[in-house]
């Protein structure tokens, strides 16, 4: 297991290195200068600025420097925003993003599991149809549409929550709800499929033949077995929350990294875009790694090292 984790961590860095390289060269392909948005600079000034960022060096040297910087945890310096180091920029804005991201995933997962389990238990009844419809709505309505609607009705019209503010928990409710819809839909559908599968398995029939009531069969056997595979979709879920956070943070004016990313795109702030790309990828690979390890820990068939006889 330790060997496996070490190998996976090695892969993580390898993948990150490749991603960083690809992003770097893609950015170098861009036409024009990155300073088009700043005040018009004289050729001399431009030269100075370029030298300041090391942009007068050959591309290869820049690349070596950039990668070298990465190893020291340096993602470069922003062209905008007072020339702040990108790492610092991320650091300042990480907390709000993490908070609403985590809240959305927790809310989405818990309610998704409940919805999926209820649908599976009441398979082919109106309860199932309703649950399926709710999860399809969650999957189909883009988070930014949902965010705007929530903002308009719950904040602007009915004043239940603040419109766009970032201070206390209250202000995180609407963005959390907007972001939770997609994970909720995903988890509910996945859970339903898994649980329907489990409920028709032989060991559920055996559990029933032991004298378990229907409720006991669900709580003692069906739930745990269908929950284990749900862990595998936490990775994709994190991605969708990340994606959603970019606009949702924008709509609710939350000072997070998603909002920063969109701002950097509109201002051509390449170092920040690159830095955030690498950071997002790092988060994603890390989540997938943690999920894989977690899966190994909770599934006895994997935990004990051999795949069993199947």
């Amino acid at each position: 297991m330790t060997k496996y984790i070490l190998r996976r961590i090695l892969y993580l860095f390898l993948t990150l290195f490749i991603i960083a390289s690809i992003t770097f060269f893609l950015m170098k392909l861009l036409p024009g200068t990155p300073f088009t948005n700043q005040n018009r600079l004289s050729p001399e000034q431009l030269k100075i600025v370029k030298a300041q960022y090391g942009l007068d060096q050959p591309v290869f040297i820049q690349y070596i420097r950039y990668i070298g910087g990465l190893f020291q945890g340096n993602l470069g310096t922003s062209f905008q925003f007072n020339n702040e180091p990108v790492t610092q920029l991320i650091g300042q804005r990480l907390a709000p993003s993490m908070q609403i991201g985590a809240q959305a995933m927790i809310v989405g997962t818990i309610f998704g599991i409940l919805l999926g389990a209820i649908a599976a238990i009441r398979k082919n009844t109106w309860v199932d149809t309703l649950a399926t419809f709710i999860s399809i709505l969650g999957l189909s309505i883009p988070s930014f549409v949902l965010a705007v609607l929530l903002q308009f009705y719950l904040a602007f019209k009915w004043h239940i929550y603040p419109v766009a503010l970032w201070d206390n928990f209250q202000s995180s409710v609407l963005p959390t709800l907007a972001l939770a819809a997609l994970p909720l839909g995903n988890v509910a559908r996945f859970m339903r499929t898994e649980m329907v599968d489990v409920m028709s398995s032989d060991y559920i029939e055996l559990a029933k033949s032991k004298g378990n009531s229907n409720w006991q069969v669900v709580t003692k056997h069906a739930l745990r077995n269908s929950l284990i595979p749900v862990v595998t979709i936490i990775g994709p879920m994190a991605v969708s929350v990340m994606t959603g956070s970019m606009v949702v943070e924008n709509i609710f004016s939350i000072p997070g990294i998603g909002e920063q990313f969109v701002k950097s795109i509109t201002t051509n702030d390449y170092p920040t875009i690159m830095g955030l790309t690498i950071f997002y990828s790092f988060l994603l690979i890390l989540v997938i790694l943690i999920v894989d390890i977690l899966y190994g820990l909770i599934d006895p068939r994997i935990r004990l090292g051999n795949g069993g006889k199947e």
Partner: protein
Amino acid sequence: MERILDVKNLHVDFKTYNGTVHAIRGVDFHLNDGETLAIVGESGSGKSVTVRSVLRLLAKNASISQGEVLYHGEDLLKKSEKEMDNLRGNKISMIFQDPMTSLDPTMTIGKQVAEPLLIHNKVSKADALKRAEEVLRLVGIPNPKARMKDYPHQFSGGQRQRIVIAIAIVDYPEILIADEPTTALDVTVQAQIIDLLRELQQKIGTSIIFITHDLGVVAGIADRVAVMYAGKFVEYGSVDEVFYDPQHPYTWGLLDSMPTLNTSEQDRLNSIPGTPPNLLNPPTGDAFAPRNAYALQIDTEQQPPFFKVTKTHYAATWLLHPDAPKVTPPVSIQQRFKKYQAWLEGDVK
């Protein structure tokens, strides 16, 4: 001998996409205290459905449309779901076909074996686990104390079936229903499991309903045999009667398709031509008639009643009607008749 189970005129229907399938079309049988009844038939004949009806463990689209399942005189079909839960795994328990899939993959063996005890008796967890350990030893799991903490995937197929058996007998059931418990196993393991069931029956004195499509297995374990075809019983009697004095052409076909020690390499095994009927629209006459080389005109028009052969042996074939023509059964069956005659005469002497 007391009849602990008496099934009367059982009818089971399945609602499917294409219509209603009449899977069980009037089955009567009983189980005596302490005996082993084998139900034999090809796949799809309704053996599993019949015994699952006893425990009321049918799929959601199935319904028992008629009949009675009397357990000590009480109709199980009239019991509430809660009363049934109290019987299952306690008075009547079941062994399933595929040991690879019938154990919960994420629960330790010890807990799974102890579960019926905790459901039905007011015992402490420790006592239940202790009892589970005893039973695991009884069914032949080596070093049960340590292995109780293991998960199903750490056991071989044969061992898993022993565990499934342990779960079924842990609460000393009166009736043990074994639904093809050896089909998914290797031949050598099959024999071990049969031996184990026989041994356990002697030790705990349970009655067994044993379902199989393999006649070879039946001889080793059963007291009585019932042959099932297309949702009905066609012949039943003691093992000797059904094996050596079979009366129904379907039984002939089954026995004739069985390899014996005398089958040489050149001999081809005989098979029954055709396929079982579609039970969406069951035939009006004898369901076996289309595949029956000995079919009579009446077979296509009217279902045969059971004709009495001996006090314990009945067969549902018009061939036993006094007006029926005499037919010559397959050679292998004639040899069986001869053996049976010789044996009976020997007995008389």
